[in-house]
């Protein structure tokens, strides 16, 4: 077909024009593809953060949180429980001898009071499809050398003699004593006992003592005070004790697709597959240089780090994760939990389930996705807002600019070809034939542009994914996390929020690619129409004009 040969010749022999126009169209299509894909990735990342519950197969969380700032509003029993659950006392002397190194871990639930794990047996199977009990505790970890700070003072045990000042005897009393002595000497003589002998002296003494007035009896006495040991701190404590705080989560390992962390969130190593294992939050691990295979000691128990996790339950993230039973044992909180993650049977019954769950036990607090979403801010949210406003406008402007440039290029190329087009008309080509030829060229440029645009778009998305764009989201600390700060003795600069890094996973689908292609082809068509209009208005006489 002649027209196709002509088309091919035009495209290949005017390569500069072909490249510049199709590149312009490619850029327009590329921008559309990348912008839409990125903004979709942003909104899905936003969804991930704004609905963290969904990431852990959960609709609703049940806790027994109390607001410690309004302690007065609590009833007596709850207040007492809150205080007893969060009481800290450390007797360093019980941890070893001075000079020995020690570690000490204190587990506190903070505002998330614990409750009996058995309440899960009361969950209504018609409303609850799945659930996972969890225990999140704040750990205050102390580490150092036991200081020589204990003084031992022993008192008492010694005998003390005391004398009293006694009134002297009256002459009558003295006479009575003398009489008693004389009588005793006579009695000794009658018995034939020498009064100066031992026996004699004793006899006389007893007799005289008996005659003495009452106040002279027992004039000496003894007492032994009870022995007591006092130990007390002396002066200021000067030690190398370091206090660090962290949160530890107890994971119900048997639950699979619901829980504080899921297997899919393990980024290195593996999930729990044996005893004495611990999983570490990736960000905590990198901050503290912890690797898979390392040993980690918690409350004197040595665990092996089996995996690093990127938890997605942003509102209730922990630094360390242990199987629930092990944490309960370590923390001395057997059969106690402070969080239940619940998946309701049907999405539409979430509110019904929420209502039912709030009556599960006294003081049960229920929170759903909407509530957790309110706490999120950060670069991710800004970026998502940015795309929805600025970038979409900017890309519209860029696409429009590309359209205009392509149209101008097309018109200029038509202008350069006026003699050619005039000649074609003069030798009998109809307007339709000439226009069709020009339109065919534009369409081809559009298709080339679309293909190049799609190719570059896919490449750029691939590269963006490869370089791993991450955006941060700050999540205001919820009751548990916020409370931790106040219960962390010695912790410094406790932040008010936790941030989660969300990696952008940019995906494109055929619809987006098609849309990008449509932009390029539309651009070509628009410029083709402008060109066609010019062609129709062109008079064939131009072919005869003798200008070079």
């Amino acid at each position, binding site marked *: 077909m002649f027209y196709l*040969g002509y088309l091919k010749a035009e495209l290949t022999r005017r390569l500069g024009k072909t490249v510049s126009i199709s590149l312009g169209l490619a850029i327009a299509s590329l921008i559309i593809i990348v912008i839409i894909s990125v903004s979709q990735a942003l909104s899905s990342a936003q969804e991930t953060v704004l609905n963290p519950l969904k990431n852990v197969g959960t609709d609703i969380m049940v806790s027994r949180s109390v607001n410690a700032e309004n302690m007065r509003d609590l009833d007596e029993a709850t207040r007492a429980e809150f205080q007893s659950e969060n009481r800290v006392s450390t007797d360093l002397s019980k941890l070893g001898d001075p000079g020995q190194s020690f570690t000490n871990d204190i587990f506190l639930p903070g505002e998330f009071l614990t409750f009996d794990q058995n309440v899960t047996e009361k969950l209504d199977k018609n409303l609850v499809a799945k659930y996972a009990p969890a225990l999140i505790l704040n750990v205050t970890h102390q580490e150092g050398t036991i200081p020589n700070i204990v003084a031992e003072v022993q008192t008492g045990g010694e005998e003390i003699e005391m004398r009293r000042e006694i009134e002297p005897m009256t002459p009558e009393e003295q006479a009575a004593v003398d009489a008693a002595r004389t009588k005793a000497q006579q009695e000794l003589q009658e018995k034939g006992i020498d009064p100066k002998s031992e026996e004699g002296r004793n006899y006389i003494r007893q007799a005289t003592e008996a005659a003495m007035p009452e106040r002279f009896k027992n004039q000496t006495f003894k007492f032994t005070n009870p022995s007591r040991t006092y130990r007390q701190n002396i002066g200021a404590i000067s030690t190398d004790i370091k206090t660090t705080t962290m949160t530890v989560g107890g994971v119900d390992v048997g639950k699979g697709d619901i829980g504080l962390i899921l297997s899919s969130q393990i980024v290195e190593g593996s999930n729990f597959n044996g005893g004495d294992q611990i999983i570490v939050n990736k960000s905590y691990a990198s901050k503290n240089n912890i690797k898979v295979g390392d040993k980690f000691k918690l409350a004197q128990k040595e665990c092996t780090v089996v995996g690093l996790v990127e938890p997605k339950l942003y509102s209730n993230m922990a630094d360390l994760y242990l199987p629930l039973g092990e944490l309960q044992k370590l923390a001395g909180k057997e059969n106690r939990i402070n969080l239940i993650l619940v998946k309701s049977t049907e999405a539409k019954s979430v509110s019904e389930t929420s209502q039912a769950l709030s009556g599960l036990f006294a003081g049960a607090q229920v929170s759903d996705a909407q509530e957790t979403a309110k706490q999120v801010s950060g670069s991710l949210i800004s970026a998502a807002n940015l795309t929805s406003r600025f970038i979409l406008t900017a890309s519209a402007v860029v696409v429009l600019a590309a359209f205009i440039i392509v149209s101008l290029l097309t018109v200029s190329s038509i202008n350069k070809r006026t003699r050619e087009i005039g000649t074609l008309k003069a030798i*009998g080509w109809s307007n339709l034939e000439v226009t069709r030829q020009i339109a065919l060229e534009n369409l081809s440029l559009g298709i080339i542009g679309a293909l190049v645009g799609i190719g570059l778009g896919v490449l750029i998305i691939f590269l963006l994914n490869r370089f791993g764009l991450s955006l941060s989201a700050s999540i205001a600390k919820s009751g548990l996390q916020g409370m931790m700060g106040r219960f962390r003795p010695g912790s410094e600069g406790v932040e008010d929020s936790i941030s989660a890094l969300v990696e952008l996973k940019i995906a494109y689908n055929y619809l987006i690619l098609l849309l990008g292609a449509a932009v390029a082809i539309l651009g070509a068509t628009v410029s083709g129409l402008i060109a066609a209009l010019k062609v129709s208005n062109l008079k064939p006489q131009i072919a005869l004009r003798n200008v070079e």
Partner: protein
Amino acid sequence: MKLIEFKKVVKTFKQGTKAINAVGGISFTIDKGDFVAIIGPSGSGKSTILQLLGGLDRPTEGEIEIEGKNIAKMSEGRLTRLRRNSIGFIFQNFNLIPTLTALQNVEAGMANRSTVAAKRARSLLHQLGLGERMNHLPSLLSGGEQQRVAIARSLVHEPKILLADEPTGNLDSRTGQEILRVMAHLNEKMGQTIIVVTHSDYISNYATRILHVRDGKILSDGALKIRNKDVLEKAV
């Protein structure tokens, strides 16, 4: 046999406020098989006559009949069909399409019937001595070769009338004469009706009739009976 008839044709161009009579009421007829040269100084109206003949423009007054049909009143579409079927054009600047090969350029003259066109284009290029250069782009051809390609293009659809606008204007005199010789040959051997607007001094050697125009009027209309047969023989 009468092929073309101009009846009191007037063509007025507006230049600013005043109207210029490019063609001032001329009448003539051209028979089939004529090789007519329209000569005259610049601005004499000879090119306007050619445009009117080719249906590229319409007269302000008067009638132009081609094969008995008045083309002055024809629609744009019918004029296009007339050019496509009955008229061949040769231009001073050759007007070849730069991206197309010699062969494709010739085919462009009969684009709507490409299979026939391809066959005929080859044969014409062979006849015009361009058999070896069919697949060259115009930029690789000499001026004379380009104009011969243009002649082939103008003939590919077998037009009744061949119109040439200064066909030798961009060629040296030797090459120009060669082109004229080709045209004379076509006229002599195939009875091709040719109307050529030219300045060439040699045209009287090849045309059979000369129409001398000045200021939009015909000064003289003379048939040339003697044609230089010798040069003609060497044409192809």
